[in-house]
């Protein structure tokens, strides 16, 4: 029997506000421990939380980007549990009236988006080696009370690769919105996955497990794969999946159970009496809508409509800075540049040279790349030599036409008499190859073209050489 995974994701995104969600302490990551605290985020008795307006604005932008239905009114609730990172004994979150429900981002439906405060950071003292006994922890409340938006998807994800791809879209979208810095290393984007498997063709859901707090896209993909494999092996052996919370260790690939007492999940939610409801007004919605930039999914569609291949459109749209570079090059006004060939040069040749770096910060100006592509289109330089010019542009910047001129890299024009004697010489020097071509083996033409390219330092147009060879051999 074949199984298919059914995966839902829960993503916590830290919102990029200056201050915390319910007090005026700085929400900045890190800092000297316990320097960003006050009676509110330390959970002192008698204090009152007040919601940060920016949190609502950012969350509304997120909700609009994910095509969510924003509830007219939302409210906060207390999620009660004891843990040292939670000074009040409860976390202020949202329960039955979240900011929004429904929606979709890409091919995955959104179940809900809600707001909550982050917990403090616990450092196990044993790890530092400076405190005797490893059963003590140090609490740093700098992170406590920083704003989080939790995005819960429907179980629409069918593979680890799809999970990774969707998270990439989410990350790009949040970054584009400017609402989160989506830095997984600093924990500003954290992901849990609810995983079950079922026989292919079945519509029922199997028992799910929850894989907690994976902090890199690579680990998420590996963690999900490992858990799916574990569940499959279990079912094939006639066993059953037990609903539990799991931890994936990326170093050992081991999956271990975070056995918690059943009653720990009894959160006894009740409405937060210290916070009044948030009513989303027409004005607030309009302001959020006006502040929306073009999002990756929309940009991908627009670029495809320009005639760009699906893969390139996705790469340009999902890497905002790459898309910006491409559009700047396109807008530099050279009408001879084909849209797809420019996309090829940006997505393949340029990316091969600048890697993950922002191409806008490279020495290759967008108009210079467009100019180079135009030279190729005009057959003023061969593709091979254009790559050499691009190497120079990456290293030193400059103008492609000038580099071609100075380095004598210009193509030998098709109608140019200069090419003919070189082809003659190449045919004479490779008589056996010429014979093979005449006999119908066109592969042998490689030797001839290679010879001509060596003679011309790559300045000959391959298609033109082929045409000359054929005509000279009477083909």
């Amino acid at each position, binding site marked *: 029997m074949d199984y298919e995974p059914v995966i839902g994701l829960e993503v916590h995104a830290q919102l990029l*506000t*200056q*201050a915390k969600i319910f*007090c*005026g*302490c*700085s929400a900045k990551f890190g800092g*000297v*421990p*316990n*320097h*960003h*605290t*006050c*009676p509110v985020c*330390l959970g002192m008795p008698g204090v009152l939380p*007040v*919601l*940060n*307006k*920016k*949190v*609502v604005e950012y969350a509304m932008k997120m909700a609009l980007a994910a095509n969510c239905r924003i509830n007219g009114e939302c*409210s906060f609730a207390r999620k009660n*549990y*004891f*843990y040292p990172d939670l000074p009040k004994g409860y*976390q202020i979150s949202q329960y039955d009236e979240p900011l929004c429900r429904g929606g979709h981002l890409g091919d995955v439906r959104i179940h809900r988006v809600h707001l909550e405060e982050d*917990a403090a950071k*616990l*450092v*196990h*003292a*044993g790890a530092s080696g*400076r405190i005797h006994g*490893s*059963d*003590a*922890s*140090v*609490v*740093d*409340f700098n992170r406590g009370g920083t704003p989080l938006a939790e995005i819960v998807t429907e179980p629409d994800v069918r593979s680890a690769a799809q999970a990774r791809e969707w998270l990439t879209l989410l990350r790009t979208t949040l970054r584009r919105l400017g609402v989160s810095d989506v830095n997984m290393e600093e924990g500003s984007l954290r992901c849990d996955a609810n995983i079950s498997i079922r026989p292919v063709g079945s519509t029922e859901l199997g028992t799910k497990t929850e894989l907690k707090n994976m902090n890199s896209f690579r680990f998420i993909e590996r963690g999900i794969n490992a858990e799916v494999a574990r569940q499959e092996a279990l079912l094939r052996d006639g066993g059953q999946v037990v609903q539990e919370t799991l931890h994936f260790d990326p170093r050992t690939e081991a999956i271990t159970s*975070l*056995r*918690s007492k059943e*009653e*720990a*999940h*009894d*959160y*006894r939610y009740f*409405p937060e*009496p210290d*916070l*009044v*409801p*948030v*009513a989303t*007004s027409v004005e607030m919605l309009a302001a959020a809508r006006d502040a929306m930039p073009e999002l990756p999914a929309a940009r991908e569609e627009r670029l495809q409509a320009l005639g760009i291949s699906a893969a390139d459109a996705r790469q340009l749209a999902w890497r905002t800075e790459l898309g910006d570079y491409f559009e700047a090059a396109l807008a530099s006004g050279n009408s001879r540049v084909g849209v797809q060939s420019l996309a090829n040069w940006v997505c393949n040749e340029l990316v091969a040279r600048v890697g993950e770096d922002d191409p806008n910060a490279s020495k290759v100006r967008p108009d210079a790349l467009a100019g180079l592509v135009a030279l190729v289109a005009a057959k003023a330089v061969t593709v091979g030599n254009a790559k050499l010019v691009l190497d120079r542009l990456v290293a030193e910047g400059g103008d492609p036409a000038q580099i071609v001129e100075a380095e004598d890299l210009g193509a030998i024009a098709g109608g140019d008499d200069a090419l003919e004697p070189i082809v003659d010489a190449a045919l004479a020097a490779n008589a056996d190859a010429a014979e093979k071509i005449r006999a119908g083996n066109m592969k042998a033409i490689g030797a001839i073209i290679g010879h001509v390219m060596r003679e011309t330092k790559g300045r000959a147009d391959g298609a033109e050489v082929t045409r000359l060879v054929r005509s000279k051999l009477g083909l």
Partner: protein
Amino acid sequence: MIDREQVLHVARLARLELTDDEVGRMSEELSAVLGHIEKIGELDLDGVLPTTHVVEVSNALRSDVVEPSLAPAVALANAPAVADGGFLVPSPQAGADPS
């Protein structure tokens, strides 16, 4: 009726240690409280939205402006113990994190 098991369950959630006598008393008192709630439940409240706040106020919001925090020494003044600039606490049991 709230039985002893339920009292002990709620007490565990609230990290309360109760004597045997207290468990018995809590069982009676909590049952009485629930009795009152059940009485309210007899009313026909179809179409009445749950009330979470008695005053009709919404959107009490603050601007996203950073204000001075407590001096760390003040923040840590009530800590049972301090280490590395933080509150030193017993480590929670591995895996007990319910969040």
